[in-house]
């Protein structure tokens, strides 16, 4: 069964203090690894898809990387508006419209 583990569960950073979030996964054939941002009471907002080990993607202060066993979401010089829960999910190669298996997320709080 596909499994996703995220760490830390919660992270408090000061504005400008860079850090990384970890996502470890096991999946029977990876189609893609996805990062989402979720604000309280709202739907997950798509950030990145990574398909193969060694791949990297960037968007503003965020950079996602992928190895065969884990993914990292690096946050450089975060701002208070980056505060949210960051979810990692994997999709296995099993047919069309297959499910995402999510981790429990990392709650990030960025303070002034």
């Amino acid at each position, binding site marked *: 069964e596909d499994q996703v583990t995220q760490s830390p569960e919660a992270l408090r950073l000061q504005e400008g203090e860079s850090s990384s979030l970890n996502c470890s996964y096991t999946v029977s054939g990876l*189609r*893609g690894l*996805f990062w*989402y941002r979720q604000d309280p*009471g*709202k*739907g*997950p*907002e*798509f950030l990145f*898809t990574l398909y193969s080990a060694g791949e990297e993607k960037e968007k503003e202060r965020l950079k996602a990387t992928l190895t065969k066993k884990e993914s990292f979401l690096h946050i450089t010089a975060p701002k208070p508006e980056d505060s949210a829960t960051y*979810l990692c999910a994997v*999709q296995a190669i*099993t*047919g*069309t*419209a*297959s*499910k*995402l*298996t*999510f*981790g*429990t*997320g990392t709650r990030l709080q960025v303070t002034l």
Partner: protein
Amino acid sequence: AAGVIQSPRHLIKEKRETATLKCYPIPRHDTVYWYQQGPGQDPQFLISFYEKMQSDKGSIPDRFSAQQFSDYHSELNMSSLELGDSALYFCASGLAGAGNEQFFGPGTRLTVL
């Protein structure tokens, strides 16, 4: 840009009642997914559709059913509601084969009293 539309946004029901949640995917998307997210939990996959046919099935109770219609909108029907069904229900849509990203709607908050 157009996003996934879900209705209603909030729904309050009594135990043993029925509820119908609606989802309108992003135009031209051919896949629809339903997820349930309990308080403090990660989204749990319920069911998905590709080109109006059921594609994948997760931990969806037998009391729930879903379908995708000819205009690609989808409905999640929930019967004999239980207190434990109180949750956020998200619909997501995507384009099969084009990166497989799933774009989520704002959710329907279901409260069962």
